[in-house]
């Protein structure tokens, strides 16, 4: 697979792949006491992308993330994070990775600031003199500067979540992994998380964010991975996923009935829609549809591809898996921009 940035990749230092993937797994599998949590997951996270990991509860999102970060040993399969194998070389890559996994973990008897200072001390990329500044900056970034000296036990759920986010952003990162970052946040907090993700994206940081909130993913991500029952059911650029399903062209025309008839004569499935017609593009291309219509004398005001909402796509994917897997596998994730 090649991506837009692949040509800039330097295939040296024996990493062998030469493609710009921030994270990649091959046939990843995890079995917990006979229960298969994750099965045959081939994940591809392009560098610089914001990848949303979607799936119902218990679909293997967190297990996959924990394996990616070297917290759990996979039963089978390979993992590469920023080009190095995990968990073997986890110590080399983890300094460049920030993570919030399974909710924030802090000590209640320490202030938010002291909790962060403790973790900052363990950050290999921070020099001794930078710890204070790094902690202040991280607190500032998540909007907790005002509550920095409050005990963690006095924090609200949203503040705890923000502090978790701050600890993921303590050092300069190349990959940030966020497991359900908006859990417990009010709408303003959710907005804040979106802003932080967008900011990271602008700086070229790769972000992997898991969520069961579809709107969340639709609003922030460039790429999507959909997991269901431990299996990847779809993966690719968000736009591709939204256009998948049966591709449809919406044509605005005042001559609806004629247009439908004309298309049916040409064996193109179409049906009437509120102010025009919907044309199924499975067997044909938009250009051919419009040409046929214009030749038959139907007036075409506007034609556009229909974007299904992510919600619809997601429901389709997690309920009616079989149809879609083949179709989406051919889609290659594009690099961002």
């Amino acid at each position, binding site marked *: 697979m090649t991506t837009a*940035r692949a*040509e*800039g*990749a*330097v295939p*040296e*230092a024996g*990493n062998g*792949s030469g493609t*710009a993937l921030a994270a990649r797994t091959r046939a990843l599998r995890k079995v917990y006491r006979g229960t298969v949590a994750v099965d045959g997951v081939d994940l591809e996270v392009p*560098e*610089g992308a914001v990848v949303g990991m979607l799936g119902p509860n218990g679909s293997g999102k967190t297990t996959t993330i*924990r394996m990616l*970060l*070297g*917290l*759990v*040993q996979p039963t089978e399969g390979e993992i*590469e994070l*920023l*080009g*190095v194998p995990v968990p073997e*070389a*986890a*110590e*080399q*890559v*983890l*300094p*460049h*990775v920030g*993570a919030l*996994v*399974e*909710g*924030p*973990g*802090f*000590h*209640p*008897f*320490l202030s938010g600031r*002291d909790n962060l*200072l*403790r*973790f900052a*001390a*363990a*950050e*290999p*990329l*921070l020099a*001794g003199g930078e710890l204070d500044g790094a902690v202040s900056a991280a607190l500032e970034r998540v909007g907790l500067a005002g509550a920095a000296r409050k005990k963690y036990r006095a924090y609200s759920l949203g503040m705890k979540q923000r502090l978790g986010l701050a600890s993921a952003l303590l050092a*300069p*990162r*190349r990959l940030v992994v966020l497991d359900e970052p908006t859990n417990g946040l009010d709408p303003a907090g959710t907005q804040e998380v979106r802003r932080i993700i967008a900011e990271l994206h*602008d*700086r*070229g*940081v790769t972000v992997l964010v898991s969520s069961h909130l579809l709107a969340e993913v639709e609003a922030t991500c460039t790429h999507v991975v959909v997991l269901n029952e431990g299996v990847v059911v779809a993966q690719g650029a968000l736009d591709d996923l939204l256009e998948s399903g049966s591709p449809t062209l919406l044509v605005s025309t005042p001559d609806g009935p004629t247009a439908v008839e004309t298309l049916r004569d040409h064996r193109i499935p179409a049906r009437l829609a509120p102010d025009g017609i919907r044309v199924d593009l499975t067997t044909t291309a938009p250009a051919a549809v419009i040409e046929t219509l214009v030749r038959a004398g139907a007036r075409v005001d506007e034609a556009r591809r229909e974007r299904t909402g992510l919600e619809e796509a997601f429901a389709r994917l997690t309920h009616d898996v079989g149809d879609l897997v083949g179709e989406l596998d051919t889609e290659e994730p594009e690099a961002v921009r």
Partner: protein
Amino acid sequence: MTTPHPAATRGPATAPGPGVPAELPARRRAPLGRLLRAEVRWIFRRPRTLAVLALLAALPVITGVAVDLTLDGGGAPVDTGPPGAGPGASDGGPPIFVTMAASAFVLPLGSLMTLLMLLLPLTVAMASGDALAGEQSHGTLRGWLLAPVSRGRLLLVKAAGVLVVALVASGLVVTSGMVTGLVLTGTDGLVSMSGTELSMADVLGRLGLAVAWATLYLMAVGAVALAISAFTEHPMVVVVSVLGGLIVSVVLMQISALDWLHPFLLPSSLTSLVDLIRDPVSFDGLAEGAFRAGCYLVIGMSLAYARITTKAG
């Protein structure tokens, strides 16, 4: 990340550029000293650590004052000893609390022996329970692993933290006992059990030795506690198991039919602390106790290491 990648077409210079995997710098680690400082600061900011240390510092004072008052009032022989004088003090030999009990030499040693029965092991077990199980239950162990701190290094830092607690706790008991003794009786009563006068330097040397020996003994307890701590996420399980184990050991020590088992029981070492009051000091029992503690230490740390390197984070 210091070399901007050719493909980096956006973002300020300070941002981690969209580099390629090949650019990952060599492995870096946070300095060990910084990790240790963070760990020790965390331990000594816990309210419960401070509470138990305060208790440990207060007990020798209470014992000393109580003994002093009893001796002053009536001068009756106090063969029962102060409350809390454990079997280590009254086992066979002359009751050490009777005459010179409030001296700056015997009070700290007696307090140390008494507290080594339960309260000091409790302190260490608590610290060990918080070190791994407690961190696991708060989800903070994951934070260390993700930083990353390698699992072996993490155990090293945690064991060092427990060592500091053991050292501070036993040092505090001895210091508190000695200061109390000096206040109550001055430099009187600095005599060995054999009746010889001891110089202040000699006394300090012996007390220092007692602290070192007690720390080793407590680290043996701590190593076993750390092993248990690595297997659970409930600090309470650690404390209960360790104290339960010590109590069972002491019970087994009372059963003479099991005397073949006694050399393997950790509390068998405790009585040898009395040897520090003899003149000259007899090192046989102390050395045997140190060896026994060393065995527990090695076994405990090995189990803890085996578990922490394989557990899920």
